[in-house]
């Protein structure tokens, strides 16, 4: 795996660009641990100072250093996105593998549920969830809610892979050697499915960060937790844009776009690497 990553990094332009962008974003988020100011604290620096040597991204109208605030925000956003992605991957893998391997009625039922989730517009549902939990709407709860909405598309993908795996010889062999369904799925099929899961993870992180930004900006999340979304929320509360405090908006938006593009590039290059077809065409197999 490491070798693959190294190769990808050296020879795949998309991957290397994506990796550099994401490393940059991760580095910024890790910098939060070095922040001289505690997260969320207001009036610790002079307000509305434009970018300068002391405050490279300027300071905002709440008396916070935009750069350090951004380090917390991107850390929380990334953690959030990753949590949603991992949870929803878990559902997608379980549903996809089970459905594909077991087949029959189980498959029909699972896929019916799956297709139901595919067409659900997530935004009204999340708004409903917020509607119930508002008082207790926490980071973790939102992550769970989003994970419940974000798995269906990829479960179908994994199911189709599992379907093809089922007919492979090693499955029959494992079956004859007395392995249980769970064992077969976990030990034999999972490794084949993991690469595609990795690629979809990147997309899912993108999706959940984007949705979190949207919900936060409307004020449907816990605005005390610094995330990219709540940063923009507070900037809007202070009408940073018309007040000329453009750096309060521009840097979070810029950083979040870098994150999106970086994750997207990683996913694309992983997909390209995984898809034997494009790998083949890239290598130009001799006929």
């Amino acid at each position, binding site marked *: 795996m490491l070798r693959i990553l190294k190769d990808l990094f050296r020879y795949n332009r998309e991957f290397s660009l994506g990796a550099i962008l994401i490393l940059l974003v991760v580095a910024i988020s890790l910098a939060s641990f070095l922040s001289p100011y505690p997260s969320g604290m207001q009036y610790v620096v002079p307000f509305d100072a434009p970018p300068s040597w002391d405050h490279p991204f300027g300071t905002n109208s709440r008396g916070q250093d935009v750069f350090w605030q951004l380090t917390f925000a991107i850390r929380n956003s990334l953690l959030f996105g990753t949590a949603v992605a991992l949870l929803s991957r878990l559902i997608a893998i379980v549903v996809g593998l089970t459905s594909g391997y077991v087949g029959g009625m189980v498959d029909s039922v699972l896929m*019916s*549920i799956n*297709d*139901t989730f*595919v*067409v*659900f*517009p*997530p*935004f*009204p*549902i999340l*708004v*409903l*969830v*917020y*509607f*119930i939990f*508002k*008082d207790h709407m926490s980071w973790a709860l939102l992550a769970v809610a989003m994970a419940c909405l974000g798995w269906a*598309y990829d479960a179908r993908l994994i199911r189709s892979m599992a379907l093809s795996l089922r007919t492979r010889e090693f499955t029959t062999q494992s079956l004859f050697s007395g392995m249980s369904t769970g064992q077969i799925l976990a030990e034999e099929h999972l490794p084949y499915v993991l690469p595609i899961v990795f690629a979809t993870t990147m997309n899912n992180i*993108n999706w959940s*960060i*984007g*949705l979190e*930004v*949207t919900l936060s*900006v*409307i004020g449907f999340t816990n605005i005390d937790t610094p995330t990219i979304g709540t940063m*923009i929320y507070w900037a809007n509360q202070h009408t940073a*844009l*018309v007040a000329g405090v453009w750096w309060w908006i521009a840097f979070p*938006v810029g950083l*979040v*776009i870098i994150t*999106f*593009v970086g*994750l*997207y*590039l990683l996913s*694309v290059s992983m997909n390209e690497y995984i898809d034997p*077809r*494009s790998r083949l*065409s890239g290598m130009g197999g001799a006929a």
Partner: protein
Amino acid sequence: MAAYALYVLRRSGQFVLVVFVGINIAFFVTHATPIDPITAAIAAATRFSQADPQAVQLTREALRELYGLQGNLWQQYVVFWMRVARADFGPSLSAFPTPVSTLIWRALPWTFGLLSVATLISWGLGNLLGGLAGYYRRNVPLKLVGVVASGLQPIPNYVMAFIVLVLFGYVWPILPITGSSQINLPQGWTLAYFQSVFQHALLPVLSLVLVGTGAWFIGMRALVSNIVTEDYVAYAELGGVDRWRILISYVMRNALLTQVTGLALSLGLIFNGAVITEVVFGYPGLGNLLIRAVYAGDYSLVIGIASTSIIAVAFAALVIDLVLPLLDPRVRVA
């Protein structure tokens, strides 16, 4: 034909299931909310006057009866479904006694218009350019389009709408940034009204198209670069079949089937984008209505909108799925 009938039946069954599950979720979620519409109404009514507890109790009972909230959850559930069957979601609690369906019908055309225009443009443009880019892999302008599309595609709708609004409404203020038509322009089949609607829709549509086109472009390009390696394309090339004919009838035509299926599957996400864009541009569609309903604690309206969006999206997906076999001769037998 029998196979198709069976397919229609199965697919329609799926649709019914989606709608049933979706509306149930909407119902139970809203009824689990801590928001009490009666409290909200009393709070609004007594904001400017003193009210003693007896008076409050009097109002409370009157409202409970008025809003039709008597009975336990099960009874309300039955009443609810009986109403839904008649496309009636009861009176809005925040705009009492206006029926929820009136409010939704008022907003739906705007969302539908915005969403369908933006989707058609981004789907068409994305597929056309993506198809060309996949076929003419060395074309520099198309490569450039690819880079731009890849850069724009992962940006969430909110951020894109916001950027577009800032650019064309503030930095370079050339287009209206709020509303659906000019103030005091009567709605009607007049040229002035259409011009105004068109002008007001430009920015929302633009922001949706900028994000949406990218995904279709990238998908189509990848599909086409796979399809050009298909035997029938190689064979047609060997046969000296006309280039445009190959591109359109062989490459695009085959890729389109996948892209139409993709459209059905991503309607939910597209709907999401449209709703959020409406909020940014103050566009009078379902998205804005939903946010307002949530703010007002009007759960009749919230259920109505959530159910309508689920039905609408599922129905659109159903239509596409039913049309698909007519496009693809292979699906007809399957």
